[in-house]
């Protein structure tokens, strides 16, 4: 196996599992340490560089970082990264003077953004400080998009949303509220240098089965949640069935409980391991008394005298045939109800984009968009967020915004949008002295902090009572200590090694081996101090060691980053170095 190239930022980045898993590559360990130090402002601003909405995402993020967290591999439960992010947002002071600002002198380029959701706002956030004239078209009267109209206030208070959207709008974006874009042709004719489509996937999917159009009490989740947000809908009948089991379904069932429903059932076609909703949202819903029914496929609505009285389902049994899931119908059941909310997915629709503009569409009527540059087949027109490839989560929308902003910037100055700036890194020794490191390297055995919730009786008083109360400063300081500081990389200098075995002997998790490098990687993984069986984790292989021409091998899987290898190294061949990914943004090499 060839020696590992640690000069390429990719290797050390991948070691920081949370940062690697985050679409926006947020520097999680560093912002956690800042929270632990009580430096909430600094933590918030570091967080904001990449994910733009720490307060919103600290409540609503899908948390791809947490299943990836190394702590979850050594201690069952990952660090509560998402809710710690919220702590920094909740406890920060006034940081407005530290936010990026738009220069008084504009650069003369005009950009139109369609929709004021998370991806468009991110584009604006990245382009305004560069002097762009940014116009945002939004059909509603406030910014935020889906974050505002589809996430109920008991999960995301309006004030948090207003503040974080406000930071960007207040940089000087021209907001055209209440303006629907009906024609792309007309918009392009206004002479913008670039157009970004961040209009989301705003239509709830429908379910065409018998009875669908025969009663008014059959609703689609997204539209219904918006109506609740605007106050058009203020109550719902007692018995409600939600079809679908994604996060929209979770918001629908819990909103129903707050509007007067007492018997709420979420019905899913498949079994629990295939549910799309995040586990913690399912947990919260069940805690509030929502019943979740698995393996039931909708057959028809039961209508009596023009009134919905129930819904008929086929009970399914799933089996695996040739590696694919197949269902057989056991029998049918009717579940009585007064209302049904369909929450089975979202659709995109682009009737307003003329098909003769050079913007190519696929057979499924989705635009053809480059995965890296976000450019459509017409240079100067970009897609991102749910509008690009269908529904994804907020943090993906943010990353789309960052990448599209880079493309727009390159395009506006006549440069090749495919020639993207490369990420860099800094690697700084954490050694402060003999056995002293710039981070707390000891392992904290505390269990994952549990979130305090508002009492059930208080919760249903109004839509605006936030359910999660957040961590206390003490709780968060302890939770931060659970972080293994994976960005403190074990950096090895083979030429200094005297092969005394001290690191191999002291490593608590048997990550290190000094051995011959004469076999393929699969075989090498088997003959380490502890076999490296987790193939998703890299193994590091050094260059030849000076004395015996063997190599140092490290299995990254369960390294605790405790620094004992560097502590016990007599020649400082091992060092702990803080890795910082330098991620490029529009107009800046990194920030």
């Amino acid at each position, binding site marked *: 196996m060839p020696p590992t190239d640690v000069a390429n930022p990719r290797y050390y980045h991948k070691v920081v599992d949370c940062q690697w898993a985050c679409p926006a590559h947020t520097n999680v360990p560093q912002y956690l340490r800042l929270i632990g130090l009580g430096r909430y402002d600094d933590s918030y601003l570091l967080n904001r560089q990449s994910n733009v909405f720490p307060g919103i995402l600290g409540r609503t993020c899908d948390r791809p970082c947490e299943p990836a967290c190394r702590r979850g*591999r*050594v*201690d069952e439960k990952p660090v509560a990264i998402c809710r710690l992010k919220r702590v920094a947002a909740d406890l920060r002071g006034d940081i407005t003077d530290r936010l990026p600002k738009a220069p008084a002198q504009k650069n003369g380029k005009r950009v139109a953004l369609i929709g004021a959701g998370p991806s468009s706002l991110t584009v604006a956030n990245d382009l305004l400080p560069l002097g762009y004239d940014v116009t945002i078209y939004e059909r509603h009267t406030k910014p935020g998009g889906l974050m505002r109209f589809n996430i109920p206030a008991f999960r995301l208070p309006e004030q948090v949303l207003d503040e974080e959207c406000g930071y960007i709008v207040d940089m000087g974006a021209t907001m055209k509220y209440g303006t629907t874009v009906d024609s792309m042709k007309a918009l392009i004719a206004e002479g913008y240098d670039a157009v970004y489509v961040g209009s989301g996937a705003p239509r709830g999917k429908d379910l065409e089965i018998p009875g669908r159009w025969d009663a008014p009490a059959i609703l689609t989740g997204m539209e219904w949640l918006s109506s609740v947000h605007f106050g058009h809908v203020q109550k719902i009948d007692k018995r409600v069935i939600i079809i679908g089991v994604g996060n929209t379904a979770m918001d629908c069932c819990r909103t129903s409980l707050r509007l007067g429903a007492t018997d709420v059932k979420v019905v899913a076609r498949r079994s629990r391991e295939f549910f799309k909703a995040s586990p913690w949202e399912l947990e919260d819903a069940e805690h509030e008394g929502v019943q979740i029914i698995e393996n039931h496929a909708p057959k028809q609505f039961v209508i009596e005298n023009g009134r919905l009285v129930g819904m008929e389902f086929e009970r399914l049994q799933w089996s695996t045939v040739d590696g694919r899931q197949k269902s057989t119908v056991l029998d049918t059941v009717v579940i009585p109800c007064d209302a049904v909310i369909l929450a089975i997915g979202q659709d995109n629709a682009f009737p307003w984009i003329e098909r003769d503009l050079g913007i190519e569409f696929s057979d499924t009527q989705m635009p053809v968009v480059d995965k890296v540059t976000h450019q459509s087949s017409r240079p100067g027109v970009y897609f991102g967020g749910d509008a690009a490839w269908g529904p994804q989560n907020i943090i993906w929308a943010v990353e789309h915004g960052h990448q599209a902003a880079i493309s727009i910037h390159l395009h506006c100055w006549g440069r090749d949008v495919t020639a993207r700036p490369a990420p860099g890194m800094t690697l700084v020794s954490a050694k402060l002295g*003999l*056995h*002293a*490191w710039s981070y707390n*390297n*000891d*392992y904290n*055995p505390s269990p994952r902090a549990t979130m305090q919730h508002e009492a059930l009786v208080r919760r249903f008083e109004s839509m605006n009572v936030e359910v999660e109360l957040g961590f206390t400063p003490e709780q968060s300081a302890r939770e931060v200590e659970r972080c293994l500081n994976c960005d403190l990389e074990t950096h090895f200098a083979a030429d200094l090694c*005297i*092969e*005394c*075995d*001290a690191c*191999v*002997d*002291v490593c*608590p*998790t*048997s*990550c290190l081996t000094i051995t011959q490098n004469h076999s393929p990687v699969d075989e090498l993984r088997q003959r380490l*101090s*502890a*076999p*490296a*069986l987790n193939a998703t984790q890299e193994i590091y292989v050094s260059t030849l060691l000076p*004395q*015996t021409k063997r190599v140092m091998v490290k*299995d990254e*899987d*369960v390294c*605790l980053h*405790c*620094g*004992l290898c560097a*502590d*016990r*190294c*007599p*020649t400082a061949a091992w060092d702990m170095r803080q890795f910082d990914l330098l991620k490029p943004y529009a107009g800046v090499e990194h920030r």
Partner: protein
Amino acid sequence: MSSITKPPIRHPSLQKNALGLSKQDYEGGMSTLCAGCGHDSVTAALIQAFWELDLPPHRAAKMSGIGCSSKTTGYFMKQSHGFNSVHGRMPSVTSGANAANRDLTYIGVSGDGDSLSIGLGQMAHAIRRNVNMLYVLENNGVYGLTKGQFSASADVGSKSKKGEANEQNPIDPLLLALTLGATFVARSFSGDKQQLIPIIKAGLAHHGFALIDIISPCVSFNDHEGSTKSYAHTRAQSVELVEADFVPLRREIRLPAQHPAVSVVKLHDGSSVCLRATDGSYDPNDRDTAYQHVRACQSRGEVATGLLFVDEAARDLHDMNRTVATPLAELPFEVLCPGKGALDTLMARYR
């Protein structure tokens, strides 16, 4: 010293031995030796050997004297018995302990100062008596604890950290042991666990005094250029005379077809050690050959390593004293101390 103690987390693919113990269960306190000390590697090799042999920690006794080496008994098998004696007296204390309880496994850890200077007489007599014990001599050629003066094992011409050469003849523990009638004589290197671990296992299974002289570099005071006990020098100059493979009782012995030079020695507990002389003429069962080979290597400036001599037929302390099979510590008091009447009868025989 380390900044922290070892976190209690282990790799998920680590295995347990027949006793259901992991290697972690054979560990002790955190080492306070210098980072990179050879003694820590010896500790790690001992832990690995104990774990592989399924040695029950509560049936072992760790014995030591004074010095860097003698601290290391604190770094393994925290559940074992142990005695940290005065300087150089570990062999005597172990002899006494072994006399009283022959059923425990005795692991003595000593250094070149503790064994070859202040404790030389003690070690010599433990060898003569063939006390059933593993005697680990962590040999670094200097007094590290007092900042690097030459010890009795320093080679002529070896340079101190300041550059002065040693002029006094060294005591070679292997030659000494061979002349005193030692029944198990080996040398290894802390930086070569592949060789060291099987030798430790064989030494533990040997019935009698098993001496392993382990070159264990002092990273602070004797790992420089000009030193003959540094990592680099030992790696360059060590010559493996005999390759030893320990075969536990429950494993079938398979001799490689192409190697007539392999000799199998059955050990006391039924397990075996396969010895393969890397030099065709070497006979690890012949005391005189062993002596000559070590001397020859010495004169060439080489370090002879491997299990150099073993005699499993020799009698140990208890055999020679014809003690009962039950450990004295477990005999009923009336049997162990039959009273004044029995003493009077005995004394009467000498009147």
